[in-house]
C-alpha cells in the first residue's frame, strides 16, 4: 500500500467513524424523544387536567395541582428574576462596560450559570426553609430565580451590546438623559434578543427538579398559597416515576410529555424570534 492509499484509507475510516458517532448520538436522542411521545400520548387523558393527585389505584387521579403549581412557581420566579437580570445586564452593557467590576460580574455569572442546581437548592433550604421551619413555594421561587438571573443577565448584556452606539449617540445629541436613551432606544433595539433570552431562561428553569426537591417540596392537592409547600410537574414526575405503582408511573410519563413539549416549544419560539430579527 502506498503512502497515499494509506492516507486515503485512514481518511475514509475516520470520516466513517465520525458519521457513525453522529448517527449514534442522534439515535439515542431520537430514542428518548420517541419514548416520551409514545408513552406521553398513551398516558394523557382529560382526567389529568381536572383531578388532583390521588393514591394509586384511583381512577380519578390527575396532575392538576402539579400543572398549576408549576405555572405559579415558574411564573413568579420569572417575575422576580427577569427584571433583576435585565437591570444587572443593563449595568454591564451600559454603565460598567469594560470596567474591572463589570468583567468580574460577567465571569461570576458565567460560573453561576453552570453551578449545580442542587447546591442552589441546599442554599435556599438553609436561608428560607430552615428559618421558616417548613417547605414553601416561596423557597422554590427563590431557588428558580437564582438560577434564572445569570442567564437573563448574560443575554441582556450581549444583546444590548449589539445595539449600534450611533443610535445612542443620536439620542444623546437630542439632549435625552441616559436612562431615557436606555429605556427608549437601547431596550427597543434589543427587544427581540432580550425576549429570546427570557424565553430560554424560562425553559431552563421550567425543567429544574433538584432545587425544588427540598424547597417547594411537593403537595398532592391544589394550592395557591406560596407560603405552603407546592407541587411542581418535575418533582411530581420524579416521585411518580420512582414509585412502584403502574398507574402512577403512567402519570409520570404524562407529566414528562407535557413538560418537554412546553420546554421544546419555548426553545423553538425563542429561536424563531431571533431568526426573524436576523432576517429583517
Amino acid at each position, binding site marked *: 500500500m502506498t503512502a497515499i492509499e494509506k492516507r486515503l484509507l485512514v481518511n475514509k475510516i475516520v470520516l466513517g467513524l465520525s458519521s457513525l458517532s453522529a448517527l449514534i448520538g442522534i439515535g439515542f436522542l431520537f430514542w428518548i424523544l420517541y419514548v416520551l411521545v409514545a408513552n406521553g400520548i398513551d398516558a394523557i387523558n382529560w382526567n389529568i387536567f381536572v383531578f388532583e393527585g390521588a393514591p394509586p389505584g384511583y381512577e380519578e387521579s390527575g396532575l392538576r395541582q402539579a400543572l398549576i403549581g408549576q405555572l405559579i412557581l415558574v411564573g413568579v420566579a420569572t417575575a422576580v428574576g427577569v427584571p433583576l437580570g435585565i437591570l444587572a445586564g443593563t449595568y454591564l452593557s451600559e454603565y460598567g462596560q469594560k470596567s474591572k467590576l463589570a468583567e468580574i460580574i460577567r465571569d461570576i455569572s458565567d*460560573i453561576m450559570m453552570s453551578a449545580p442546581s442542587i447546591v442552589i437548592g441546599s442554599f435556599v433550604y438553609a436561608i428560607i426553609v430552615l428559618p421558616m421551619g417548613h417547605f414553601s413555594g416561596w423557597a422554590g421561587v427563590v431557588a428558580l430565580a437564582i438560577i434564572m438571573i445569570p442567564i437573563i443577565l448574560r443575554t441582556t448584556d450581549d444583546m444590548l451590546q449589539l445595539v449600534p452606539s450611533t443610535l445612542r449617540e443620536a439620542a444623546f445629541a437630542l439632549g435625552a438623559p441616559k436612562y431615557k436613551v436606555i429605556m427608549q432606544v437601547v431596550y427597543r433595539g434589543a427587544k427581540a434578543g432580550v425576549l429570546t433570552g427570557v424565553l430560554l431562561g424560562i425553559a431552563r428553569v421550567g425543567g429544574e427538579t433538584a432545587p425544588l426537591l427540598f424547597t417547594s417540596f411537593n403537595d398532592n392537592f391544589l394550592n395557591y398559597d406560596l407560603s405552603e409547600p407546592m407541587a411542581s410537574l418535575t418533582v411530581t414526575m420524579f416521585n411518580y416515576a420512582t414509585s412502584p405503582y403502574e398507574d402512577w408511573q403512567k402519570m409520570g410519563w404524562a407529566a414528562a410529555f407535557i413538560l418537554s413539549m412546553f420546554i421544546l416549544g419555548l426553545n423553538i419560539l425563542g429561536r424563531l424570534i431571533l431568526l426573524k430579527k436576523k432576517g429583517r
Partner: protein
Amino acid sequence: MTLLIDKLFANATRFVAVAILLLVAWIFTVLFQHSTEAIAAFGFDFILQDKWAPNLEKFGGFAAIAGSVISTFLAMLFAVPVAIGVAIFLSEIAPAKLKSPVGVSIELLAAIPSVIYGMWGLFYFVPIIRDVFGGLGIGMLTAGIILAIMILPFMAAVTRDAMNTTPDILKESAYALGATKWDVIKDVVIPYAKAGIIGSLILALGRAVGETMAVTFVMGNVHKISLDITAPATSIPVTLANEFTEADTDLYFSSLFELALILMVMSFVIIALAKFYFLRRTRKVK
C-alpha cells in the same frame, strides 16, 4: 428631576449587578456555616472515610465524592469521542442540507430536562444493562452512560462552534496542498479550535459533576465503594437529592451541607478553569 431619575436608574442597575456578586459569596458562606458542625466532628476524615451510617451518627463523604468522580470520568470516557465525532460531522462532513436540521435537533435535545433523561434511563436503559451485564442494572456504569448521553449534545454543539471558527482560507490552503479531509481536520481544524474544544469538554465535565436528576434515578444511592461498576453506588448530588428531606439530626444535615459545599467548590474550580483558561479567547467571537 430628570437628573435624579437618571442617577436612581444608574444606581439601581449597579446595585443589582453587585448583588449578584454578593449572592455568590453568600452561597459559599451559608454552605460553610452549615458545614461547620460536620467539619468540627470529623475534620479532614470526612473526605477520606467512606462509612456513612446515619443511625450511628457517622458520616464520611468518600463514597459520594469518589462516586461523583468515577461517574463523571465514565461519562467523559463515553461522551468525548462521540461528541467530537458529531462535531466533526456537523462542521466538516455533513452536506449543507443536513447541517442545520441535525445541528438544531442536537441543540434542542440539550434543552430536554435532566429528570426526563433519568426517567428514560430507569425504564428503558436499566433493563438493557441488566440483561447484558447482570446485576440490578442500577449503578455506576448506567449512571455514566446516561450522563454521557446528557452532556453529549451540549459538548457537540460547543465543539462544533469552536471548529466553525476556523478560517476557510486555512482549510483551502491545506486542501490545495493535497491534504485529505482528515488531514485538514487533524492538522488545521483541531489545532485551530483546540482551546475552544478543551474548554467545552471541561464545561461539560462541570455539568456532569453537578448533574443530579439524570443519575438519581439510576445510581442506587448505596454508600459503598465497589470495584464493580455495575453495582449500585452513590455520588454527591444523588446523596443530596435522596437524603436531604430525610435528615433528622443536626450532624446529618451538617454533613449533607458539607457535601454540597464540596460539590460547589468542585464545580466552581472546574468551570472557572474552562472559562478563564480555555474559553476566554473564543468568548467574544460568537
